[in-house]
């Protein structure tokens, strides 16, 4: 029972990181109908920037985090400007958007690899230890990761549902053309969405880097976030969070009780099983193409 609780606590903290990533995908997907493959590159970029801000410039953790977030916002917005904008204006097929995103991802990840080297680095932040609740010992960093992740998601919720720009984004996610006829600036919507993407990816990258390690291909973990957003249901932000928590907890249980090598295998099997029995995800509506 203790092992079980221990794994659940650990699963919640990794699930929180997955939620940040899954929400980032869902946000872009809900407005532009394509998967932002460059997202994992933003995540690795954010983690690297924070890593070098601390290890080379000896900045405090919070300052480094803010610098990393700002740089990731810049990276995300400029990728949008360079790689997606003209395709979006031309109403190019989604396949082209995906290939372009894939290209941006390949280029950024391999640039990081070339400049910083492919080795695994320990994130230079002191271990703030654990505290115990009954028999379960909880890492303080895990708690911090959970709190900040949900804090960021909460802020995003407030932004989307309680402010005017948020209303504009929600309108664009229903129909971007009609929204622009109603006087919503499409370019501003794109700017805000990709800036939010930068924030989410950078926060997720920093906490993932602290939990495991910082390396150029660390973004491969975003495949878990995509699986989580399919499990939850496509294009919906709450469903992405639910799917992420579920996947995080289940895969940590598998790692604890069976073997950590089969953790990744399990998440893939989980996807196939969910698709077989819930073709639209657990909370999704019909995913038929809209005419």
């Amino acid at each position: 029972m203790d092992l079980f609780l221990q794994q659940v606590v650990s699963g919640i903290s990794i699930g929180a990181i997955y939620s940040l990533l899954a929400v980032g995908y869902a946000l872009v997907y809900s407005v532009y109908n394509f998967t932002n493959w460059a997202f994992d590159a933003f995540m690795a970029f954010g983690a690297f920037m924070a890593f070098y801000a601390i290890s080379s410039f000896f900045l405090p953790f919070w300052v480094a985090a803010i610098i990393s977030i700002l740089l990731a916002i810049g990276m995300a917005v400029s990728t949008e400007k360079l790689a997606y904008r003209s395709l979006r204006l031309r109403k190019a097929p989604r396949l082209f958007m995906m290939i372009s995103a894939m290209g941006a991802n390949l280029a950024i990840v391999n640039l990081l690899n070339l400049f910083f080297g492919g080795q695994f680095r320990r994130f230079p932040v002191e271990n703030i230890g654990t505290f115990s609740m009954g028999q379960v010992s909880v890492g303080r960093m895990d708690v911090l990761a959970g709190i900040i992740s949900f804090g960021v998601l909460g802020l995003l919720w407030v932004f989307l549902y309680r402010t005017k720009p948020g209303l504009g984004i929600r309108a664009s996610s229903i129909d971007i053309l009609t929204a622009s006829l109603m006087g919503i600036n499409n370019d501003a919507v794109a700017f805000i969405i990709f800036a939010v993407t930068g924030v989410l990816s950078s926060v997720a990258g920093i906490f993932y880097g602290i939990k495991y390690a910082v390396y150029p291909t660390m973004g491969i973990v975003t495949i878990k976030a995509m699986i989580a957003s399919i499990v939850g249901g496509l294009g919906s932000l709450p469903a992405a969070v639910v799917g992420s928590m579920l996947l995080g907890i289940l895969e940590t249980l598998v790692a604890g009780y069976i073997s950590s090598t089969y953790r990744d295998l399990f998440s893939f099997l989980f996807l196939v099983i969910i698709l077989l029995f819930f073709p639209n995800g657990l909370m999704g509506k019909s995913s038929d193409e809209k005419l």
Partner: protein
Amino acid sequence: MGYLNAIIILGGINIIAALGVAIITGYTGLFTIGHAGFMALGGYACAILVTTFHVPFAIALIIGGLFAGLCSFIIGVPAFRSQLRGDYFAIATLGLSEAIRLILNTTYKVVGGAFGFMGMSNLTTVPVVVIAVILALFFAHMFVTSQYGKNCIAISQDEVAAQMMGVNLLRTKLIALFISAFYAGVAGGLMGFYMAYLSPSFFTITRSSDLLAAVVFGGIQSLIGPTITAFVLVAVPELLRVFSEWRLIVYGLLFVIIMLFRPQGLLGYVEMNFAFARRWWNAVFTPHQAKQGTIKGDQ
């Protein structure tokens, strides 16, 4: 000479795998980044059949390809049945290929785990590869010009319209995926018997991106384009070794640039055809009278 042989053999193997990706991505419009997984399945199946069960190489290649094709249904049936949009199919293929690599990496009993599978002789020679590439091109051409190929193109243009015209989406996509995985499996088998050993580290996401690059650069809805680029992409890095660190960065930037300025690829929508050969043949060998007759008959 050995160096040239290496380029021809590796280029030919890359061509066969890229033709598989061309059928599913170029013609059916489904984005895949997991074909390295199918290559691994075909390669290991073929290697085990030849070394353990002493099956002839050619038959083992075909069985390996069929095995990869059947395994593609693991992901094809749930992904297509749930009408996942194209992006999510791509994630599913990536997940499958990573899962396959993980299983191969941790199973030490039959497939040798991370050490790799050894004991193959060097059966893949230049003539074998050349014959395989010609057959692969021939059958791919037959497929994409057949009714099934036309259904695939219809799906890539507009799924809803294709369905209204009576195209069975699930069946057509599964056929395209099966053939595409078959090609990747055969390429994997050829690779194992050229390298004389197989390791899970051959089949990483980098290889999948290389295959996708060949199709994107070569052109959508074209066989001859990916064939040329698949060969060039193998030959050029071999010739310019210094450049190898920058290879994937340049690929990535080229992906973006090609999508922005020439999204159909270098030879997009250019179909390979042998009409010129038939014209020349007729011009040279057909007697004048008979030729006129056939033209009238055609009209």
